[in-house]
């Protein structure tokens, strides 16, 4: 599992759920329903300002765990990636690639 950040393009459905990912010039399609959560940030150490009215994206990031495969190769292996959605800028960054063959994730019970 590698951890890094890299800008990616994500296409979303109307309700904000990602359904396509463009990464390194290639298109990926979602193979499973994505899982979303909000992960806390240590904003007091990472930010310069926290003025009133500063909301979404300051205290947490929206993270999506996506199981994707290359859009044009139906039998390509599944890959699991975590992408962060920066709500203030609207940008997406790839933050984790889970190595090996991933089993479809269920909502961790």
């Amino acid at each position, binding site marked *: 599992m590698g951890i890094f950040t890299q800008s990616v393009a994500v296409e979303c459905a109307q*309700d904000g759920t990602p359904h396509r990912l463009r990464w390194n010039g290639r298109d990926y399609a979602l193979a499973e329903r994505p*899982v*979303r*959560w*909000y*992960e*806390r940030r*240590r*904003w*007091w*150490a990472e*930010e*310069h*300002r*926290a*003025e*009133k*009215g*500063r*909301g*979404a994206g*300051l*205290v*947490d990031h929206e*993270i999506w765990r996506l199981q994707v495969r290359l859009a044009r190769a139906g039998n390509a292996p599944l890959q699991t990636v975590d992408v962060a959605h920066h709500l203030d800028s609207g940008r997406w960054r790839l933050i984790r690639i889970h190595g090996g063959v991933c089993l479809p994730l*269920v*909502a*961790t*019970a």
Partner: protein
Amino acid sequence: MTETAEPFAHLQVASAFSAHYGASWPAELVAAAAADGQRLLACTDRDGLYGMAKHVSACRQHGIAPIVGVDLAVTWADLPPGERPGTQEPGADAGRVVILARGGCGGSGYAALCRVVSAAHARTTGGAGGGAPVITVAELAAAAAGPVPTAADPKNPPTPELFVLVGPDSDVGRHLARRRWNAGLQALRRWKAALPARSLHVNAVSHLSAPGRRCDTGHAVKMVRAAAQVRVPAVLTNAVRYAAPDGAATADVLDAVRALSALDGAHDLQPNGQGWLKPTAAMRRIAAEVADAADIRPAALLAATQALAEACAVDPAEDLGWGRPRVPEAAVVGIEGDPARVLRERTLAGVADRYPDLFTGTAFAATAAGRELEERVEHELGIISRLGFSGYFLTVAEVVRMIEGRGVRVAARGSGASSLVNHALRISHVDPMAQGLLMERFLSDDRSTLPDIDIDVESARRHEVYRALFERFGQQRTTLMSMQNAYRARGAVRDAGLALGMPDPEVDAVAKQLWRFSASHFRDALERMPELRGFAERLESGRREGSRQLDLLVDLTERLDRLPRHISMHPCGVILGDASLLKRTPVQPSGLGLPMSQFDKHDMDPMGMLKLDVLGVRMQSAIAYALQEVARTTGEQVDLEQVPLDDPATYEMIRTTHTLGCFQIESPGQRELIGKLAPERFEDLIVDISLFRPGPMQSDMVRPFLEQRHGWAPAHYPHPDLVPVLAETHGVTVFHEQVLRTFDVMTGCGLAKADELRRLIGSDAETRVEEFFRSRALSRGYSLDVIDEVWATLHAFGSFGFCKAHGAAFAVPTYHSAWLKTHHPEAFMAAILEHDPGMYPARLMIAEARRMGIPVLPVDVNRSSDHVRVEWVPDHPELGLPPRDGGHGGTPETLFPTTAPASAGGPAGGGEAAVVGEPPVPGPSAQEASAQGASAQGASGQGASAQGASRGPGRWGIRLPMSALSGLSEAEVRRLVDGRPYMSLADVRDRARPTARNLERLAQLGALDCLLPPGGASRTDLVHHLEMQHSAGYGSGPGRLATTSRKARPRQVDGQLSLDLPDVELQSLTPMFPSPRNADRVRTELDLTALDVTAHLMDSHAPYLEALGVTKAERLLSLRSQSRVLVAGVRVATQTPPMRSGRRVVFVSVDDGTGCVDTSFFTEAQHASGEMLFSSRLLLIEGTVRRTGAKAVSVQAVRAWDLHRPETLPDPDYLDSTRDAWARWLRADREAARRRAAERDGVLVGARAHPGRLPEVPHHATGHWPVKADVGRVARDLDVALAGARAGGELPWPVRRSDDRAVPVPHPDTWELLPTPDG
């Protein structure tokens, strides 16, 4: 499906009133819900219903159905009511649950909620460290049990009164979070078994946190599954703590502060920032995610939530008694029959008492005055009975009767004085007929809320009065009101610094500079205020180095500002209700031990609560004490009510402006106004008090008023019709009452409507008032010019002028205090020192007493009691002539020979001196006489008449109490007082048992001088003696002279018999040292008592100041206006009132022993004086004399020096050597003044930048004029704050002002802003 079409209803919402938890105000939360189209919204604050009333208010505004509840800690332990959980048995902790009241049931659900909250708080004691509220499951279940089907009403469904939501913070939730599935199920079953049917609900919360973290979706899924298994309905909430995502950072900071840790180390932080009031769409999506994973339909989760919300929707009127005032039952007040009839009877009886000439008790006099009185009585009784407030008036009358019955001084303040009924019922002592006060200003048919009747009582007996009220009306009908203590600048910056993990000293340094700012404008202040320049620079340099902490500090401080921190007892609010009171408000213990409501003053009217303001006023205590001292010393019983309000001597005293100590007229600004206004009658005092407010200042009433009063300008009336209205104030509108009459005269609207119009001035609806006024006045034939002029006055008057009734109510204690100061100066000054009612330090009052020629007698173990006492001082050559030089050796030990041994051997006084306050006793020894005198005094005034009867020539003085010596414990003071008289040192040691250190301090202060043998050892010898004994006692090595002394005088053995013999121990002391010099005495006195008694603090600087040519305060009036002058003194007051210009002007008053000098520092002088302007204690000030009235004089400062920094002080030839520089300065200053005047008149608009001109310092709080404020409230709060601040440690609540804004206490200089008027 219809259920899912419903908008979501949030059932768990903490508002900002959940201290250190919620981050949004109820209004913000409700507005957010309304914006999303939600129809129902709960408010479930932690531990109480603190935000409930505000929530319901906001809901009503937005058309949302309110739900009320609480988030409370629960225990399984079986505790009796009121008992605290000890070391909790394992498994007893049930965590926190949300409890919602059933709605639409006539208040039974809400009553049960109040009962639960009060029971939880019964396990705490007031104040910090009083424990956390907790309810037992058994109590909760009992309160939740609802009606059951009965024979009479078989269809009555079994509905619980309370619904309990077991969520993530409950024991069930915790088990499931730790993957203890079976334990969780078991706990849930236990809940189900314990609570009445249908009460229990499972509360599923998903904050969409990372899988495995608190409040992740998985946890909500488990909760839902458990609910299904145990067959309990599950609802979905978002455990809301803030209205929008931007509150998340604030909540983080609150989490850290609650745990007293830095954000970095806090382990209890919310998992992420998702606890906001999410819209329906987002909540549906969460429901879908949870339901999907739990294999249920999302609709079921949402439907259960909706069903519960509807069951809990509260009808404010039916369930909470919204807006319907409830007063104690007639029988409790002592009324038989119709309250309206009883009120009429009592009012008429009272009128006969108050106006014996106009009403005999059966018939009114046939004069115009008699008819007027009769009409007024009928008018007021009509209004009161139509509004149904008869019971209320009788209740207040009963309260006043009860307080008077205890011998406590009591008086109504505020608009209550407008009412004749109040006057007749002895609630108010102002005669509304004589003063032309209007009932409509207080109450009219158009006002349906209970009018406030505020009552002042003696502050020292306030708590006694509260307890008596609880006793009189019963525990179930009485509770104290509470108030919210919110974050203010200093606390906010401290806690923000804590959260950021900044070092304490650094945060402290910032916090100390912050007292003058509102934290919410911190960043703004950084740019404007010179005091913060250092901090701003550090911020800037930090930024350059990439440090972000200070920027964050500013942001977080602004976020915390004004958030509630805790509640405490309101300083004066007492709630009276009927037997249902405790079903309508939860209560918790106050610091006083008495219960207090969780509602604050804003909640009173909506919650239908009758609140009495029973305010402790120190001046009332001081007046009572003065009367008591007069009676004790002279036997004269003064009834102030019988004292005529037109005593010429009193007004003469007031006109001298020597009004220090007098109620309301002692401040520097007021003394100047008094000097200009020169009051001659009681009405003048009312005007004076009313003028000294922002309203009159803003509408420029004061100058025209003074000009017309003194006949310098003819009175001007906009229209002859207004002459009767405005004549009393020479054509200037000063009072609310005049505004009402003006409206009435010019529009014919009637006084009740006029008061409504007056209230709208200054609000958004003012244009409607203007329209109404103009059209009606025009139609009644007034010319446009008249209408324009009158409207301009009404508009400027705004809503914050002054109610004459209020001014009149204030003027009574003002007059009484001035009367006492004039006719019983010793008793009055003793009372002022005893109760400290004013704004000045006690040492200024000592200086004032000395200025008045009243001897101030030092602490003396045989003469002092635990109170400041008036004492007879026999004639003595030195009386009134304080020795300028320190007495050495042979001179008397004290300023006045009040001690038997000293005077017996002294050069004068002889027999007279030996019998202070006692008939001559030809006793064998002077000591005995002294002892008897002291014992008579110790018997607290029983020998009073005897004392007065046979005193020889002399005069009354003031004896300082034992308690003046700081550091004496209460027990020591009591023993010292009880043990009097003392014959010897051994006697003091033996019976009073002070600590060795305190015995030394008593000796240093001269309190043991009375035990010294005449002509023998001096005070210094005694102090040395005691010090050596002390050090020997501790065995702390060889002292300087220790060996010989110790041999000579073996240490006293504890319990050694004190024989009735001359003091052997002191007799055998070898006199070695001279008595301390006066300067040393003064220093010791200041160190030990903070009072300079022997001489004035400034006396030691006299030689230098005389050489320099410094002018004394008493001589200032003899100088010409504009003269150059040097003054010096001890700082007694510093004020920066808001100014019309928005610039800051600093007023510093100093006392030099001959009186107060009031100085003003404008921009240039502030820059020239620098930091010492706020910090130094002894000041030398150069400036020009400003005469503003016959007796009004002040100094406009040019620069100031700190007398404690000799190296900076000017040389003695300063005035001569700088004559030329002064002339140049004067020219430049006048030029600047002209320029400014021109600028103000608009001549030089645009030409603002003058080279070399110093930057203006904006006022810290306003920065602009006018300051709009609720004057009555501010004045009240100020008094409260002052009263609180004086009481020091005994107060159960922390001293604070209830508002961040500077209290607008304007200075008369606001209408004369010129540095030097051209002349």
